């Protein structure tokens, strides 16, 4: 007998040393030979890393709306300001062409009209821009006065629009800066009251009012049938039931937000004034500003139109790159957590049915059969259409339907394992049912479960994206692959980048996942190689 720590070395009948390998090791060996599967694994790992570390990349916030940057096209070389100017010029050249000031020849006129008739506006714009710029350089075309003032306006905007982000607020106490977040509500409220020259009591009542309003809104959003009076009454009760700590955190967040807004406004003024005095100021810069009311702030000043959008922007001027990265996080996250949940439910039901057998098995499996006959996605669509469309609900709806196959699979596996000698041995030595299931049966069927779930993840992601595509899944400002694609479909002729990049991101991931799943299945079960 070998003790557990010793290596598993045995000799065969020719006295050669035979090293025992586990199933997993063998499978890994086979998987390594499958180049596509390894490539898929690498891609999946890269996606996972990007999704996990999304916060560490210098991305613009995925929900930050910059209306002036609406629908800017992807560009590596140009800043958003340059793109805005280009858009304006395209507009002006188009008007000039329509008014007959920009002459491109009869043949080209026909071509442009043909483009317009065929919805190819993008081509018209880029062609007119090119032609107009060439003519202007040659001196054949000149801007009108109103054109010039329009261009100047945009240029002025690009030069002067600045944004301020607050990275931290501090109060100077005895020559030491303490972060405002570390103070309690009382101290913060004092600061804000002194900032505005308000009475503390007035501030307290207004904060209380706002908190109650927030509660009313919350109640109303949960139950759309409730009347305003009922909601207000309910909010009163909820508010009275607030614990000291609840009140403290909520009130503090409220006042902190107010201070931040105020400071941001003031800081923006200072930054703008600085820029006027010193137009050659380089951006972005960070600064520690001392403010008049005994507090100071770490600010980051950036030029609004100095941004670069490598994958373009959407209809609210949000950065597509950032939205895709954060959307990947949502999609992959739901896929992963959903699959894990469905595996857990499936293992529980399947192992109970398989091991206990008899009546339990019969009823559980009839239940599974009936569930199988249901048109799941339709029920999920109803649920998502009717109840609150939160990520949690989406996740629950999907997890509820996806454990069925795993339950059947585990049941089959366990039924075949049940009569193996080692299980009988364990039972005869007095092991309990729970112990046999958790120590012997589940570990032994784990490999097929893992393989199957790898195959399931893309399916799960597709279902989530399917719902989000219909507008029933992830809701704005959050994004997922499906919702990004769904948003893009209606305007894809004008803004194709909104459709192409999210689709590409999703398809590459699903490809990688499918190859990995196939590879894993072949590795764990080489005989299945030619089956679907």
């Amino acid at each position: 007998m070998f003790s557990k720590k010793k290596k598993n070395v045995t000799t065969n009948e020719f006295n050669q040393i035979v090293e025992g390998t586990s199933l997993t090791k063998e499978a890994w060996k086979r998987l390594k030979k499958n180049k596509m599967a390894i490539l898929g694994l690498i891609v999946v790992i890269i996606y996972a890393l990007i999704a996990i570390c999304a916060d560490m990349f210098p991305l613009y916030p995925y929900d930050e709306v910059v209306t002036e940057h609406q629908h800017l096209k992807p560009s590596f070389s140009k800043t958003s300001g340059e793109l805005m100017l280009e858009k304006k010029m395209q507009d002006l050249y188009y008007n000039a062409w329509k008014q007959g000031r920009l002459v491109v020849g009869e043949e080209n006129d026909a071509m442009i009209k043909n483009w317009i008739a065929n919805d190819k506006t993008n081509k018209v714009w880029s062609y007119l821009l090119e032609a107009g710029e060439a003519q202007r350089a040659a001196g054949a075309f000149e801007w009108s006065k109103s054109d010039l003032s329009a261009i100047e306006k945009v240029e002025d905007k690009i030069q002067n629009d600045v944004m301020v982000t607050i990275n931290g607020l501090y109060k100077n106490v005895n020559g030491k800066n303490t972060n405002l977040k570390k103070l309690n509500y009382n101290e913060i409220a004092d600061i804000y009251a002194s900032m505005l020259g308000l009475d503390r009591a007035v501030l307290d009542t207004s904060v209380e009012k706002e908190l109650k309003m927030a509660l009313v809104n919350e109640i109303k959003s949960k139950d759309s049938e409730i009347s305003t009076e009922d909601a207000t009454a309910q909010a009163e009760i909820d508010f009275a039931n607030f614990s000291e700590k609840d009140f403290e955190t909520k009130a503090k967040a409220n006042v902190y937000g107010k201070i931040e807004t105020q400071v941001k406004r003031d800081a923006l003024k200072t930054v703008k004034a600085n820029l006027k005095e010193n137009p050659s100021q380089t951006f972005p810069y960070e600064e520690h500003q001392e403010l008049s009311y005994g507090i100071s702030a770490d600010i980051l000043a950036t030029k609004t139109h100095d941004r670069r959008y490598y994958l373009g922007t959407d209809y609210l001027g949000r950065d597509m790159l950032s939205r895709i990265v954060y959307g990947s996080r949502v999609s992959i996250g739901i896929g992963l957590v959903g699959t894990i949940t469905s595996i857990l439910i499936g293992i529980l039901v399947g192992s109970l049915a398989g091991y206990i057998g008899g009546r339990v098995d019969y009823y559980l499996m009839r239940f599974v059969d009936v569930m199988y006959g249901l048109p799941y996605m339709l029920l999920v669509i109803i649920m998502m259409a009717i109840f609150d469309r939160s990520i949690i609900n989406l996740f629950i709806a999907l997890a509820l339907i996806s454990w069925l196959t795993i339950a059947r699979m585990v049941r089959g596996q366990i039924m075949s394992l049940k009569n193996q000698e080692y299980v009988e041995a364990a039972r005869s030595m007095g092991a309990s049912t729970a112990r046999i299931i958790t120590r012997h049966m589940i570990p032994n069927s784990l490999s097929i479960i893992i393989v199957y779930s790898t195959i399931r993840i893309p399916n799960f992601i597709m279902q989530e994206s399917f719902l989000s595509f219909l507008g029933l899944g992830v809701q704005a400002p959050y994004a997922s692959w499906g919702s990004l694609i769904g948003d893009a479909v209606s305007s894809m002729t004008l803004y194709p980048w909104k459709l192409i990049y999210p689709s590409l991101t999703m398809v590459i991931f699903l490809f990688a996942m499918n190859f990995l799943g196939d590879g894993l299945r072949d590795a764990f079960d080489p005989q299945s190689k030619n089956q679907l």
Partner: protein
Amino acid sequence: MSKYIIKRLIGMIPTLLVIVTLSFFIVRIAPGGPFDGERALPEVIKRNIEAKYHMDEPLIQQYGRYLFDVLRGDLGPSYKYKDHDVNSLIFNSLPNSIILGCMAMAVALVFGISLGITAALKQNTVLDYVPMALAALGLSIPLFVVGPLLQYIFAMQLKILPTSGWFMDGETTFATAVLPVVSLSFAYYADVARLTRSSMLETLRSDYIRTAKAKGMKQSTIIFKHAMKGAMLPIVSYLGPAFAGIITGSIVVEQVFRVPGLGKFFVQSSFNRDYTLIVGVVIVYSTILVIMNFLVDIVYSLLDPRITYK
């Protein structure tokens, strides 16, 4: 055999009952009603409307009334489309959806099976690699990406096919059906082709095929008379889930290509909380699905003599 069929027919009833019950109650329990417009109605009018649609009765009574109506084939009035009842709404849109679904299924089966068989016969040649690469693509690209992309390429850039519409509406040509059908069938083509190829490979290796070869039969006879029958079994059993998938898939396709089918109604009525329409559509879809599953099982048992029916 007839006993088996009757047994299966009776077995369909509980599934349908569960579906009707579940969707009826999910919809009623949910917050918000069909008459919650932007404008609040006066209390009296609201009560009158509710009385008209029997919504003032206890839930159980409503349920009983509804079940009875459904049994008679009456799905009730639509809450949102005031002049129509659910039956006529469904009756007008269902043919479009059925034809779309059937065409997609037929395309998937014809291309999937023929290309799958060729791939199996010409293993490791171009005729194997290209259809299988296409199938791998079909597995990884979701329907709502295929649809818009095909629309973008063929309808908007190349301008060889219409962007949207549906040929059964009268004015447009049959060409409107091409893109919806192709995008809906793509994923199922992928599955069918892969299944056919693998099951064909396995069948060709079995003993009875070797016997047939040894007896000097023609290659084509072996394939079409002997191997096909055995190789088709997994595909027949795949048809059940495929029908379910095509039904949900048609919802997306009808949205993208503006096909006036049932799927579009379904999403709209879910947003509108048009209770009777939602439940009606779900009942119709589920009935189709259950019947399809039943037919698939019958075909399967006809094809495979090893199965005994009890």
